[in-house]
């Protein structure tokens, strides 16, 4: 009589119940609801795979159609709250508790439901935290995942958007959980085995291919001269000075502009090979010109991007690809790479306060964290040096024994002083604090904390926060690049000029940049079509990005 195999016995019972709706492991889409009702128990911890891009949408629809009398009070543990069904199940009583990471498109609704008490919130995580908790105290009992194809044994091909799948399956399958995979098609032999079949218990042939959102495509045609100016300053004032080779970019237009200036502006500065060679990055279409001009040595990806598959397949020296030739992405590994193996993160944000705390939260939306706080933080566990890391460390060190100095990761915020609809990016107090109070979050949703930020780039200049020696200097350095916002106009002019004399605040002219040179003619590609040309016709942009 074993007290040590209770979970296994439960798992066996669930699988036996599920098998009545399956032929071997295979379940037709029409029986998906029956399958879920058979294998789920009230109160289960469930991961319904909702990644940054890939969505187990067929299984999400099936779960939302389950009978709440049979399936209720689930505890959802998933990185992305993206589809309407992800929240419908809370309204229906099928789910009750939520631990998640990112809720981009559902940010407004999730805020209302949290406020209305329809969701019992555990916590909002970064990706790496949630993944870590899968192995400690949020291990799923059932995982509902998505792949491109499977064979009848359950061997799974995830396709280029592998994303979270290996992590979710690892935590579930090896801790007595049940794994159900939806696939677009069932084949005799999959192109490559991303997940071995003995970790997959059921395969549902989906009624239509799973949904992938093109999140990383920025149309060069929409890039402004202000963004180009900021990109020029970042390249000359940060990338060149610190010799940044290993890096991660956010998904905004400012960073996309940097990507498009590498083969033109940065090339003229003689920086090729000196900067931006090794990346932790989704396959951004705007990186194509830099790759084609020989700037990029390699790129490891969190996920993929719609339309980039053929291009990636033809550039295996640059990307991580499988024996079948297609991209192998992996969010957990790439997040770790961005955290520990990159010397710089640069990204945009919605609000920055006087100390440099930043947040993408507005009063009415809880967008979650995703991976940005992992990328945009200084990992105190890092122990390998690099020239970039050591230089930043020297700039930051104020006291103590130089022999005990450690380096610093560069965490750069690149923002226009006024954002969308002329909303100021610099504020006295983050909206995140008000939101946290309103919906009762114990921890204010700060994306990047002030003590992690090293530089702020705006169209007015660069503030180097590493060199600030007092809180007052820090505040004035931030005000000094905040332009005509209230925060910017509240600056102490004399102090900002003295910071400028010390190189803490730098204007375009201090960097030898003529703002009138910030012209769209500098962009290596000015349109999506230019990107297609750069790729030799291999990039196949989605219809909504085409103007031909």
């Amino acid at each position, binding site marked *: 009589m074993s007290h040590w195999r209770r979970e296994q016995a439960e798992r066996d019972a669930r699988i036996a119940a599920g098998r009545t709706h399956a032929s071997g492991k295979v379940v037709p889409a029409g029986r998906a609801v029956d399958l879920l009702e058979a294998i789920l128990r009230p109160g289960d911890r469930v991961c319904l795979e909702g990644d940054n891009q890939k969505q187990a949408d067929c299984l999400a629809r099936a779960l939302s159609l389950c009978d709440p009398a049979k399936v209720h009070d689930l505890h959802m543990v998933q990185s992305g709250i993206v589809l309407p069904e992800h929240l419908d199940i809370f309204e229906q009583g099928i789910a009750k508790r939520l631990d998640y990471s990112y809720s981009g498109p559902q940010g407004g609704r999730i805020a209302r439901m949290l406020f209305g008490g329809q969701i019992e919130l555990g916590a909002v995580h970064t990706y790496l935290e949630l993944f870590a908790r899968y192995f400690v105290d949020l291990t799923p009992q059932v995982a509902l995942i998505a792949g491109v194809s499977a064979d009848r044994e359950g061997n799974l091909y995830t396709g280029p958007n592998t994303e979270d799948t290996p992590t979710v399956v690892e935590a579930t399958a090896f801790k007595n959980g049940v794994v159900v995979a939806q696939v677009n098609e069932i084949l005799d032999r999959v192109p490559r085995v991303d997940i071995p079949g003995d970790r997959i218990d059921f395969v549902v042939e989906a009624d239509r291919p799973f949904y992938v959102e093109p999140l990383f495509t920025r149309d060069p045609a929409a890039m402004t001269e202000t963004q180009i100016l900021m990109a020029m300053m970042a390249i000359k004032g940060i990338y060149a000075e610190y010799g940044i080779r290993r890096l991660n970019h956010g998904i905004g237009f400012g960073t996309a502009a940097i990507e498009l200036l590498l083969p033109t502006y940065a090339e003229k500065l003689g920086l090729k090979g000196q900067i931006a060679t090794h990346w932790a990055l989704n396959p951004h279409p705007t990186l194509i010109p830099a790759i084609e001009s020989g700037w990029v040595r390699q790129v490891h990806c969190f996920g993929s991007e719609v339309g980039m598959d053929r291009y990636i397949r033809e550039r295996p020296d640059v990307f991580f690809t499988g024996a079948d030739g297609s991209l192998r992405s992996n969010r957990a590994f790439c997040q770790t790479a961005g955290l520990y193996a990159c010397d710089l993160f640069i990204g945009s944000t919605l609000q920055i306060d006087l100390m440099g705390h930043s947040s993408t939260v507005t009063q009415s939306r809880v967008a979650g964290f995703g991976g940005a706080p992992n990328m945009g933080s200084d990992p105190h566990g890092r122990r390998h040096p690099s020239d970039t890391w050591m230089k930043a460390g020297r700039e930051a060190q104020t006291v103590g024994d130089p022999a005990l100095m450690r380096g610093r990761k560069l965490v750069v915020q690149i923002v226009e002083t006024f954002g969308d609809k002329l909303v100021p990016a610099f504020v006295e107090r983050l909206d995140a604090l008000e939101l946290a109070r309103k919906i009762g979050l114990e921890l204010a949703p700060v994306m990047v904390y002030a003590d992690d930020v090293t530089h702020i780039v705006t169209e007015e200049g660069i503030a180097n926060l590493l060199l600030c020696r007092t809180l007052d200097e820090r505040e004035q350095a931030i005000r000094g690049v905040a332009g005509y916002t209230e925060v910017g106009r509240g600056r102490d002019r004399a102090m900002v000029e003295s910071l400028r004399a010390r190189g803490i605040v730098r204007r375009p002219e201090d960097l030898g940049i003529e703002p009138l*040179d910030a*012209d769209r*003619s500098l962009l290596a590609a000015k349109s999506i079509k230019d990107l297609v040309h750069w790729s030799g016709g291999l990039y196949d942009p989605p*219809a*909504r*990005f085409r*103007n*031909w």
Partner: protein
Amino acid sequence: MSERITDPRAASWYEASARARLDGLLDSGSFAEILGPEQRKMSPHLPLFDLPRAFDDGLVIGSGRLDGRPVLVAAQEGRFMGGAFGEVHGAKLVGLLRAALGLKPAAVLILFDTGGVRLQEANAGETAIAEVMRAITEARAAGIPVIGLIGGRAGAYGGGGLIAGTCSRLAVSEGGRISVSGPEVIETNKGAEEFDSRDRALVWRTMGGKHRRLIGGADTFVDDTVAAFREAALALIGRAPAFDLATLEAEQARLERRLADFGECRDATEIWSRLGVNDPAAVPGLTAADFDALVAGLRETGHDAR
């Protein structure tokens, strides 16, 4: 050290401002502006809406030379209010066209870049559209070709699309679009099932330069450079048709035939297929040279109507 491209003719038409287009289009140094920004003829209506004005009201007009020959030109600035027609903007164009009757230039060139009429001064804008069309027909009747050049970000929509339809000849680039109702307007009124305005490939194959060229809605398809538009303008001036009853009757007959031939098609690719294009799906990806070769082998695309 300037980082910018300095040859104005090498610049992208789509990317260029109205003034940069004129700069590269005309013979170097020949442009003389009429009612320039220093005269500050601005919209009297926009301040009521607390909206910023432009010193030229988004239209640059004047005279210049094209390969030595005198021309009158009007260029819309698509970056100011989407190039939309307001009272001053429209009046400047009407005045230019009427002046042509006395000045007898070799042609009037209209560099379209417009979403149509400015909502904030709609009555004045709509009136201007009608007056412009009348002025164009009068200029054409007096033997002065009016050539439309369409390759800007805003395209030639609304009243701009109507005006384009009265020009002697039109040159269009891939980025250029010609239509009356815009994609969002159609979607709002008829639903996304009828026309999904976010499907840009659909928008372009329905309203874009290649489609307009294939069905004879434009007379020349050009690369997206200022130099290519200059060459096209020169060639089209020489090919301007007569403006008489025979031309109008031919146009009426052509449009009737077009409706009969293609009226039931649900997508532009079906029209292209009926026109004799073997691989309609490949059309959007063709280069200008390959596209020209394709057009040369098709019926319907060349005619003197309009």
